[in-house]
């Protein structure tokens, strides 16, 4: 092939990359970092596009001898190595293996891998990574298993391997029509070497029976409906004790005194323990406090009530999030640190025919997954076994080992189902608490139960943030200048001395990746120190960034008397690749994916805007009090646009009769789960827009349960969410699905509220702003 052939170029770059990766991923002959994909529809030609998976700890592993076992009766057992928290990943990734093996799904069993990245590859379920990073290795794994079975059959029959083909759980010898079941070939196939990567033949997409169909239900569906699905809160071991912890109400506060005797008088209470805290940066270390261990959760809770702990609140006691928001606003109004700069912003703004300035604020938020955190630990003979709803199980295992002073190989981290997480359960403080308490209890199995109050008051919060946006418009009505300042504390304060402003990774989520066609562009950050534990909440910094940019677009459109959708498309500009790497002042983080194959493509951004608008009937006549709003955001490699229809009644009560969301997530596995994630994102987006507000006063979280931290209930809207998926071939890199549905929702809603009422929402949550 000529060097000008783009496909060939891709191969070369990937091969060289692969050599680099070999040093990073785990060693061992069969453990390979695989990024293999067929080019286009041509089966048999193996090519790759790179993902960020190789740079993650553990990288990728595709060895079928790790992931697949076949019993003599033909039962195929496939390992799910990623955590299930509602996205369906425990089904989707094994489905890829089954697809490539041509296995009969009804004869497939799924087992959950423990936390162990050396064996299974990366297990960090943040960043909507599971499919986007593992679609290729899992397909390779299945293909390798199939080829081993085909070769086993060829050996058994003494025929050429090329004449043997997998078909629905059997291998068929095409010329003679003979066939053998997978089970009959399993023992022989297991003795064969794993095929070399460059000999793998992936299925032609025309032969897919599962991928892209959406016909296979979640593997846990039946268990969920009959109450047999087991979450960490449900784990029970013989002789297990229950613990609840009185944690300092203010971060890094210390217990000065407590009444252990009163607590021990509560029937069932066995022991009171003091738990140490760790100064920031504490990563995921326990918050400390006083633990009550009892024979039941109820007794432990009663014991905790009796403790009457007196706290020394320490230096964070003055944190007041309302006052902090005011500080952030002041910073956002002054020049900050330049993060990306194009053209001459000062000159352009000074000479603009019209300048529009707006400010947007989003408060702290909290995940409030239906299952509050929980973990069970049991330590015996120098070995720890832990059951946890861990979103990052291998990370949790490493942290437990470090906390207990054990080797990682002495810690088994069993992954339960996660009753929701949305980022919270990546932080394994609850599992570390269980491990520490079990050790103090002489190794007795202990379940640490977080109550809803514990969950809401001791979270890793979505950062409060302020955005200041200035747009300059020329005499012809074109936007010639866009300056946006983003001020928010950084979750990096958990891991390093507080950087005092958002990191490159946080800014890559909606600020430095801004894809507007504006000649003079400046993106800045302001200083903001962290006073609480911050974490990643589903789609993270995309929420405030998209809220500001997408609200601002509609505000400017309104000022100029333009249709917001047409104006949005004009700002996005012609189809092209936007490359912020040239104009950022430090690093541009592209969701940890390499640039090639994962560029910012405005054709796709435009595509979802146009699709959502067309499907929603943009411009249609609406009843009085109704309005349509639109917003778009690229995040985690996917492009999502939402058109929200809002209805605001005479009392200022808001509802959302209909949502149309278009998603372009590249090549995808399960459209049914994409729809369910988009439906859920609308509900969560409406919660963020309408309700979510974690406030700190005297360093304490003011909310505690669903009465004062409400989440959306049935009947509040978003009950008619229509998902429109852009189809793609296997060569289009898969994007994330779990998070990208969320960011466009709040600005689309705010824009709809403006269309319906003329009122502009700039501070979330909406709360009572539309009333009176």
């Amino acid at each position, binding site marked *: 092939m000529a060097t000008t052939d783009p496909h060939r170029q891709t191969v070369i770059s990937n091969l060289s990359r692969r050599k680099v990766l070999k040093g990073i991923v785990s060693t061992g002959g069969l453990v390979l970092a695989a990024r293999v994909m067929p080019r286009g529809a041509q089966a048999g030609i193996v090519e790759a596009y790179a993902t960020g998976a190789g740079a993650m700890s553990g990288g990728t592993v595709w060895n079928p001898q790790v992931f697949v076992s076949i019993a003599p009766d033909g039962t195929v057992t496939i390992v799910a190595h990623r955590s*299930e*928290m*509602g*996205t*369906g990943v425990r089904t989707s990734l094994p489905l890829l293996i089954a697809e490539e093996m041509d296995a009969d799904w009804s004869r497939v069993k799924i087992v959950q891998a423990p936390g162990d990245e050396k064996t299974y590859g990366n297990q960090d379920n943040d960043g909507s990574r599971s499919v986007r990073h593992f679609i290729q290795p899992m397909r390779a794994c299945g293909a390798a298993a199939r080829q081993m079975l085909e070769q086993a059959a060829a050996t058994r029959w003494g025929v050429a391997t090329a004449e043997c083909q997998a078909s629905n759980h059997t291998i068929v010898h095409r010329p003679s029509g003979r066939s053998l079941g997978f089970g009959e070939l399993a023992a022989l196939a297991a003795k064969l070497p794993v095929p070399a990567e460059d000999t793998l033949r992936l299925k032609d997409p025309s032969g897919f029976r599962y991928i892209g169909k959406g016909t296979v*239900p*979640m593997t*846990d*569906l*039946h*268990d*969920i*409906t*009959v*109450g*047999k*699905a*087991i*979450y960490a*809160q*449900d784990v*029970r071991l013989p002789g297990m004790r*229950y613990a609840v912890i009185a944690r300092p109400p203010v971060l890094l506060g210390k217990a000065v005194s407590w009444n252990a005797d009163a607590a021990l008088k509560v029937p*069932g209470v066995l022991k009171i323990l003091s738990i140490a805290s760790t100064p920031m940066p504490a990563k995921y270390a326990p918050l400390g406090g006083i633990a009550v261990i009892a024979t*039941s*959760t*109820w*007794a432990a809770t009663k014991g905790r009530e009796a403790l009457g702990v007196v706290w020394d609140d320490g230096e964070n006691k003055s944190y007041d999030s309302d006052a902090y928001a005011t500080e952030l606003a002041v910073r956002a109004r002054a020049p900050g640190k330049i993060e990306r700069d194009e053209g001459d912003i000062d000159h352009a703004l000074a000479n603009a025919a019209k300048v529009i300035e707006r400010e947007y604020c989003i408060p702290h938020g909290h995940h*409030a*997954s*239906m*299952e*509050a955190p929980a973990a069970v630990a049991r330590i015996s003979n120098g070995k720890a076994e832990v059951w946890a709803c861990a979103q990052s199980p291998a990370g949790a295992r490493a942290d437990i080992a470090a906390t207990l002073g054990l080797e990682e190989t002495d810690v088994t981290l069993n992954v339960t*189902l*996660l*009753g*929701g997480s*949305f980022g919270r359960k990546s932080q394994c403080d609850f599992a570390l608490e269980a491990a520490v308490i079990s050790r103090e209890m002489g190794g007795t199995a202990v379940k640490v*139960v977080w*109550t*809803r109050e514990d969950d809401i008051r001791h979270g890793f919060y979505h950062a409060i943030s302020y955005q200041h946006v200035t747009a300059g418009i020329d005499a012809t009505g074109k936007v010639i200048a866009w300056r946006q300042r983003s001020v928010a504390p950084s979750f990096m304060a958990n891991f390093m001395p507080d950087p005092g402003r958002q990191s490159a990774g946080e800014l890559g989520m909606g600020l430095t990746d801004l894809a507007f066609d504006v000649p003079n562009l400046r993106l800045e950050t302001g200083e903001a120190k962290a006073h609480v534990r911050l974490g990643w909440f589903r789609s993270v910094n995309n929420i405030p960034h998209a809220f500001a940019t997408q609200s601002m677009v509609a505000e400017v459109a309104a000022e100029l008397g333009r249709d917001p959708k047409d104006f949005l498309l004009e700002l996005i500009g012609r189809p092209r690749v936007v490359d912020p790497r040239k104009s950022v002042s430090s690093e541009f983080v592209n969701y940890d994916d390499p640039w090639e194959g994962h560029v910012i493509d405005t054709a796709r951004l435009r595509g979802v805007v146009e699709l959502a608008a067309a499907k929603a009937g943009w411009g249609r006549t609406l009843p009085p009090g109704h309005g349509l709003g639109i917003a778009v955001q690229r995040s985690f490699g996917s492009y999502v646009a939402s058109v929200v229809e809002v209805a605001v009644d005479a009392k200022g009560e808001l509802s959302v009769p209909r949502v149309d969301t278009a998603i372009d997530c590249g090549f995808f596995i399960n459209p*049914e789960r994409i729809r*369910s*994630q988009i*439906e*859920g*994102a*609308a*509900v*969560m987006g409406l919660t963020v827009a309408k309700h979510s507000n974690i406030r700190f006063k005297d360093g304490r979280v003011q909310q505690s*349960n*669903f*009465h004062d931290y409400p989440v*959306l*209930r*049935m*009947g509040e809207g*978003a*009950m008619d*969410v229509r998902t429109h998926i852009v189809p793609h071939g296997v060569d289009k890199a898969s994007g994330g699905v779990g998070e990208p549905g969320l960011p466009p929702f709040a600005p689309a809603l705010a824009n709809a509220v403006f269309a319906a009422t003329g009122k502009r929402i700039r501070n979330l949550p909406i709360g009572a702003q539309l009333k009176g």
Partner: protein
Amino acid sequence: MKLRINQQERSFEVDPQMPLMWLLRDELGLTGTKFGCGMGLCGACTVHIDGKAVRSCITPVSSVTGEVTTIEGLSADGNHPLQVSWRELNVPQCGYCQPGQIMNAAALLAANAKPSDQEIVEAMSGNICRCGCYQRIFAAIKSAAQEA
């Protein structure tokens, strides 16, 4: 103390003030009844007492006089019409709220075989699904009601 739970007589010694939810979960191992809020705000702990939906997290064991049914006992084969429609429509995401949703919906349909849309919303608005499956929960109840 004794209670009839899922058509079986169960005896136990616990603090009479212990909420039924903790009896079920911690003492009897019936963990299909979930702990969501402990304050009657989310419905994750919904069980039936004599066929009526009750929040077991705020129901002291001593106050229970009737027959308790949990998700594990809703139907012998797991094929209550709601369980079937839940599976047909792929309702759950994480699944944690779903036993409570199903138990609440089952009590609704037992009392009102053909609820109106508004009656469904009213009956279900005490059950939170943080994953946001409401659209499908609603559709699954409608579908089961139509089959009946």
